[in-house]
């Protein structure tokens, strides 16, 4: 436990010394937020409130990117080897990455709330407890996904390619950039297989519809289960040495992380109401709905 705390402290300290981090974790989300709030929402508090969930989700999800890169770099440079001759365990190393990441997200999250309040005059933030729980579970689960990416790739290049491949559907097909109601019917159906959708829609409902935590059971439970699964998998696949390559069966195990959301997606497609809820939230906005009607109705 002491080793884990010491490593977490080191990771936070090192990340704060990294200028790239400051750019990606602070400037990027704010730029996004101003884009949404200024252009899409035209500064209307109710519409800004609608977009706050997706922007928070982007911040939370984006964390897997830097985390996987940092871990691969640590391995490639032989930094992990040095820790390997000490009593530090793989779980210490991995858990400290996740927790450091979580701690580093919180100021950005807080700042987004403060901006909404001071600049865009949003006065109601829905159910804050629901938001907090979803942000926490989301941060942990997407960080763990980053750990798995780091474990199954051998070089930094590979890591970045996989990150790109994961990132694009996560942000475009989950409602994080374009509202879910805005997407074609097929894309909506597909989105239900993505963990990101549950985070984005959950946060949007918490903030915009003031959904209490018990109404977000599916979102919370699926993300929490996924977090446990991916973290466990990352401890199994963890490699200290750069020259040890990924065994092929490990790549199959990774496919297993997709299974929970595959099943959930099937269920939600048949019985769920996530697209309907997204549609009604979207319809309740008067602003952008008038100027840009959804191209396809989910019903």
């Amino acid at each position: 436990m002491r080793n884990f705390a010491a490593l977490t402290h080191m990771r936070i300290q090192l990340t704060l010394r990294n200028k790239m981090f400051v750019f990606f974790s602070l400037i990027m989300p704010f730029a996004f937020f101003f884009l949404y709030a200024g252009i899409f929402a035209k500064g209307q508090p109710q519409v800004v409130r609608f977009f706050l969930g997706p922007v928070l989700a982007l911040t939370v999800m984006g964390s897997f990117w830097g985390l996987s890169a940092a871990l691969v770099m640590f391995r490639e440079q032989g930094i992990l080897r040095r820790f390997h001759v000490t009593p530090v365990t793989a779980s210490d190393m991995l858990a400290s990455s996740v927790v450091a990441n979580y701690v580093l997200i919180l100021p950005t999250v807080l700042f987004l709330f403060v901006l909404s309040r001071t600049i865009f005059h949003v006065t109601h933030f829905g159910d804050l407890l629901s938001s907090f729980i979803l942000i926490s579970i989301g941060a942990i689960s997407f960080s763990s996904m980053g750990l798995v990416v780091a474990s199954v790739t051998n070089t930094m290049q590979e890591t970045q390619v996989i990150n790109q491949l994961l990132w694009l559907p996560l942000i475009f097909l989950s409602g994080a950039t374009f509202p879910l109601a805005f997407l074609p019917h097929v894309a909506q159906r597909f989105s239900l297989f993505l963990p990101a959708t549950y985070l984005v829609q959950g946060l949007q409902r918490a903030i915009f519809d003031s959904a209490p935590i018990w109404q977000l059971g599916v979102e919370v439970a699926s993300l929490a289960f996924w977090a446990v699964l991916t973290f466990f998998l990352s401890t199994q696949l963890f490699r200290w040495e750069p020259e040890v390559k990924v065994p092929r069966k490990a790549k199959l195990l990774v496919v297993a992380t997709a299974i929970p959301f595959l099943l959930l997606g099937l269920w939600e497609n048949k019985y769920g109401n996530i697209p309907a809820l997204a549609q009604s939230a979207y319809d309740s906005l008067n602003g952008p709905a008038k100027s840009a009607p959804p191209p396809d109705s989910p019903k």
Partner: protein
Amino acid sequence: MANFVLQVENLVKRYGNVEAVRGVSFSVEEGEVFGLLGPNGAGKTSTVEILEGLRTLDSGSVSVCGLDPQRNSQALKHEIGAALQSTSLPDKLRVMEALRLFAGFYKRRRNPEELLKRFGLEEKRNTVYSQLSGGQKQRLALAMALVNDPKVLFFDEPTAGLDPQVRREIYDIIEELKHEKKTILITTHYIEEAERLCDRVAIVDHGKVVSLGTPRELKTRSGGTTRIEVRLSKPASDGALKNLEGVADAREVDGAYVIHSRRPPQTIVAIVKHLEAEGNELVSLEISSPSLEDVFIEMTGRRLRD
């Protein structure tokens, strides 16, 4: 029986089809500085990394401080200190932070301040790792190996890639540790390093120990003869010198006589007596003992260079 801190028996390590270590055996006593000397790719690093618990072995057995590095890896890690090959620290980590962080991992620890002073890094305490010179990085690596006041130290190629002046600095540090009666295992491909620092040396080649002993023993055991070069005031007949005690070979080279002797003290006495009897005189005398490098060449048929 001697108190063995390290024991290696018939160690074998394979990487795919390549046998990197092929039946290595040796033991290291408490307080001893033991060297694994051999060219790159001889299996030295694999051997050390198995002892450190970083790699698994394929067959044979090893014990470190009475522990099995695989089964008791957690307990073992509290007892060992290591300066690894091809390792690094995060670029933005400061010297003092690194020492504090690593000291924090252990139950038994040394004062990081004292280590900083001892390794001459006081002025660099707030410098980030990426801005240290090669020598400073290596001094930090050695300081970090000591944070837990370990029973046994592993230095894998501690001076590889350093310039000669820095290398001598590192030797001084290791010699100091030797006076403190630390048990140290060093791997190296520098003869000078093995000769200067090690109590005993195992010459390793192609994954096998080809010879093992003190540097002195290795040199005498090798059958290597001592080279005695003399200049005389009057020419002497070749035959007469060849028949002197202990002489293996004697010949004239550029006006001097080069004599190879198996027992140099007896030979020198014999030369002096012979010259006295002949009314001849010694003008100069030069003795060179066989180097560990000669021994290495003889054992492996190759020169030891990177």
